[in-house]
């Protein structure tokens, strides 16, 4: 048996369609899971932060204590640097500022705009000359070292 007759006898078209569909489906599922993997790990690393944020969201407004009057936002630049550093690791480099700020707001970093702006002024976030930004790890390490020494 040859030709179309043989193809139809062995149910060739159905097999071919099924085959390529399963290959695509399996690899798409894998791609989706893998693309979310680093975000899931970031979430796991910062679970306390997310947990606190979730608690705040579900607590009733009358029970919420009045927030203390905010001091200068970047008093603790070391803590800001540490948090944004983790965030940059998660979203990868180079990154755009709007994306960084949006993600920072999402995970509950307060005054994300001012914090990022302050890090740019202190050269912890530097432009890559293509419209994106990079994390200056050396400056960050220096800052954290100073912070340790001061303590």
């Amino acid at each position, binding site marked *: *048996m*040859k*030709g*179309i007759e*043989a*193809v139809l006898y*062995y149910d*060739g*078209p159905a*097999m*071919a369609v*099924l*085959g*390529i569909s*399963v*290959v*695509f*489906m*399996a*690899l*798409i*599922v*894998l*791609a*989706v*899971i*893998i*693309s979310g*993997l*680093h975000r899931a*790990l970031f979430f796991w690393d910062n679970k306390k932060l997310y947990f606190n944020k979730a608690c705040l969201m579900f607590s009733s407004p009358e029970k919420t204590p009045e927030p203390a009057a905010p001091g200068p936002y970047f008093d603790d630049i070391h803590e800001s640097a540490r948090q944004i550093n983790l965030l940059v*690791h998660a979203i*990868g*480099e*180079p990154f755009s500022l709007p994306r960084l700020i949006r993600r920072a707001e999402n995970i509950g970093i307060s005054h994300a705009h001012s914090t990022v702006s302050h890090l740019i002024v202190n050269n912890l976030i530097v432009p890559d000359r293509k419209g994106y930004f990079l994390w200056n790890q050396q400056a960050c390490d220096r800052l954290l070292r100073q912070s340790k020494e001061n303590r």
Partner: protein
Amino acid sequence: MDKFFYFINQTGFANIEVSGLVMMVIGLFLLYLGIAKKYEPLLLVPISFGILLVNFPLSPLMAQPENGQPGGLLHYLYLGIELGIYPPLIFMGIGALTDFSPLISNPKTLLLGAAAQAGIFATFLAMLALGFTDLESAAISIIGGADGPTAIYLSSQMAPHLLGAISVAAYSYMALVPVIQPPVMRLLTTKKERMIEMRELRETSKRERILFPVIVILVTGFFLPTALPLLGMLMLGNLFRECGVTDRLSKAAQNELNNIIVIFLGLTVGAKCSAYYFLTVETIQILVFGLVAFIVGTATGVLMGKIMCRATGGKVNPLIGAAGVSAVPMSARVCQTVGQKDNPSNFLLMFAMGPNVGGVIGSAVAAGIFLAVL
């Protein structure tokens, strides 16, 4: 005098057959390609030597055991293929040798690995139309995946009589990737597309690299258990490499074990190329349609690359789609070479490694589908 004539009758000279001599010439030619031209020498040298050894007249190497006498050496070594042992072990070595970081940092390139498997299923239909059975067609079409161990595994399970021709075709085309792929890549892309520079990949963490093989196994294991012998071993090898606590096992899988299995596999695949099985019209059809499968796979990978290029606003160089056929790392190198011809500052190698290792997973999945359905 009788003893003398008996001895003469037992020599190779007295039992020469033309077909055997033709196979020996083919074996010597492949040996020349492996040694002088360095075409996949680690496999072509043992394969071609195996062809030589079994095609001598009265060669006892593949003899079956009979009358209480043991069989030939290669007959017993061949059990490793027949029982589906060698290809998964080779996959373990490949897993231990492969860095999946480019795929983890750019997982959408898995789609390129999937698209390049289209050649397999297109060829499956063509082989059915030529009069091969469904099992034979599946075994032949898997050549389009450009993955030697997968081709050997599938043909040993589905069409053992075609194993010699299929494996020779698969490894020949893998060696000829730098010749076969560039014309297809140039034909389907514009110069502007070939010049696209891709953005740097993010670095992957150790935890991501450790979790990757576990996730692949969890997903594919439930999707397609028949793909587990190949994918399971591939991922086990990669876990040895990445977990950081099994360095000795990783080195053994990469070196000693891998090398031993390559010798056994090559020799026994060659031993299956006896004139009786090899010098047939089917072999020519397998060689021709194996090439077609490979070209179609390359073309569909590049076309998927073009779609991704459009969808991302020109951030993906479509050339890397050609690496979706899983000839690791040869086809990724070809992408780098072709890309650099039009844009010397372009470095596509790491980007092409993503679809390349995606293609290994894709072709193993395709093999699993055939094993599950047929």
